[in-house]
């Protein structure tokens, strides 16, 4: 793998950039692999990379039905943080954040991790209670977290409107300074390049059409490019997880929904942190190109279409202007949608199944991007050792039988 640096760029400039090697090969599928990863998004590519790097398993194929990184990896709002409420979540997301912090150097690809700080706003006394609860939990879990009052929020993000007369006034916020954003495409491309360099076959335009099994054990897959045998299969198909599950004759506690996002036209920098408000569904940051990157609320209905209903966007922008009145004359440039796989407890599944050798990594819902390296790291361990790493053991399918859910929905909203 050619090492990327300003010097290699300069050297290539002299030769008119004619000598840059491919970032990854486009190999023909081999007849058999030790492990097949279904899904060439960030999580799948990260899984392949860590399988090769951490476990020396390099006879691996990543099968992608379209173009790699073309699913939710390319469609999210790039927010990275680890300040989750429950111990189990905090542990796995914090592992992920730690991997993020060294990722550009580790895979020699600048993923532009920008730890500019993430605010989660509180708009009601109930929000405040939950925010303080989360901050305290984070601290005890060794996750950096601060509670800011309204003035503190204003200091950290001067353009935010903290007027008490706002419909849903800002009463405070949690702040994770190590949180921020990263460049989504670069994450997929970087992992792909690094995994490819370690011998992983990344096979695009290869859709899985069947899961072959014998005596309750997986033996391989049928694809649009022929059958491929494998000892183990890791499914990292996000919104399409249920489709693959059905091929293996199982069902998942997962529903697929549209999640929409949008960017504004590029404007000179006005906001240099990430602001999230679950209560009014506003998620804002500004990209290094100057676009305001915003996430909307999730559409209510099941869908496999990468688009949602427009009123969701309009509602979000109303709430957004409450928080950021100066955005009123900024213009929305592009909207899009992804398909998110949601679990009843808003926590992911990294687990084996009733089919031997078949593993699922799904259910990340709206929070998958931030988990990319950690998810891949844990899932690689699970595939390599045929048992979950302690970090992902709580995220097994069995929790839906025992009732040991990890409910990250937060408080059900104060009643009386």
């Amino acid at each position, binding site marked *: 793998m050619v090492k990327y640096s300003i010097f290699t760029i300069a050297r290539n400039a002299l030769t008119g950039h004619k000598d840059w090697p491919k970032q990854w090969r486009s190999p023909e599928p081999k007849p058999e692999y030790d492990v097949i990863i279904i899904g060439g998004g960030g999580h799948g590519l990260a899984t392949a990379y860590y399988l090769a790097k951490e476990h020396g398993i390099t006879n691996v194929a990543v099968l992608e039905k379209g173009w790699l990184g073309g699913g939710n990896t390319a469609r999210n709002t790039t927010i990275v943080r680890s300040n989750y409420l429950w111990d189990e979540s905090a542990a796995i997301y914090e592992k992920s954040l730690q991997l993020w912090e060294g990722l550009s150097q580790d895979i020699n690809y600048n993923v532009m991790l920008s730890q500019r700080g993430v605010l989660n706003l509180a708009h009601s006394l109930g929000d405040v209670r939950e925010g303080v609860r989360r901050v305290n939990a984070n601290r005890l879990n060794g996750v950096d977290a601060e509670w800011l009052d309204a003035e503190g929020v204003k200091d950290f993000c001067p353009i935010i409107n903290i007027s008490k007369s706002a419909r849903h006034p800002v009463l405070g916020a949690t702040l994770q300074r190590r949180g921020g954003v990263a460049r989504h495409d670069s994450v997929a491309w970087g992992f792909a390049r690094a995994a490819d360099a370690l011998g992983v076959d990344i096979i695009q335009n290869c859709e899985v059409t069947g899961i072959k099994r014998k005596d309750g054990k997986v033996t391989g897959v049928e694809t649009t490019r022929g059958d491929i045998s494998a000892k183990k299969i890791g499914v990292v198909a996000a919104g*399409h997880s*249920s*489709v693959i599950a*059905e091929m293996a004759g199982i*069902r*998942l*506690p*997962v*529903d*697929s929904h549209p999640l929409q996002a949008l960017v504004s036209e590029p404007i000179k920098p006005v906001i240099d942190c990430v602001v999230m408000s679950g209560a009014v569904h506003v998620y804002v940051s500004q990209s290094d190109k100057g676009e305001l990157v915003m996430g909307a609320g999730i559409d*209510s*209905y*099941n*869908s*496999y*279409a990468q688009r949602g*209903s*427009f*009123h969701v966007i309009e509602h979000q922008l109303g709430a957004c202007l409450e928080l950021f009145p100066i955005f009123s004359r900024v213009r929305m440039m592009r909207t899009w949608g992804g398909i998110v796989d949601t679990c*009843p407890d808003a926590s992911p599944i990294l687990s084996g199944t009733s089919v031997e050798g078949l593993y699922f990594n799904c259910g990340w819902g709206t929070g998958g991007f931030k988990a990319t390296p950690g998810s891949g790291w844990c899932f690689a361990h699970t595939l390599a050792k045929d048992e979950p790493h302690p970090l992902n053991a709580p995220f097994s399918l069995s929790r*839906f*039988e*025992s009732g040991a859910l990890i409910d990250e929905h937060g408080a059900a909203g104060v009643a009386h």
Partner: protein
Amino acid sequence: MLNIDCPWCGKRHETEFRYGGEAHIARPEDPAKLEDTEWAEFLFMRTNTKGYFAERWLHSHGCRRWFNVFRNTVTHEIVGSYKMGEKPPKLPKSAGGTK
């Protein structure tokens, strides 16, 4: 903005309705008799179909009736609506590709 056909009120915009998820999941007659696995099946496991899908909607801001909609989760085409207890409508001939 889906245009949903309430069996009573006719076509209204999605914003008048509340989504109820997959249809035809009957609550078990005697939950006490079920194994945890079976109970989990009822509580959590879903087919999450890609393609034509029977789902429940509540006309929450209209006549407050629950009913079923038969909709394609890829194209969002709505084949038809039907009342609780009725059978889904026939698939249109056009329904190729996605099942």
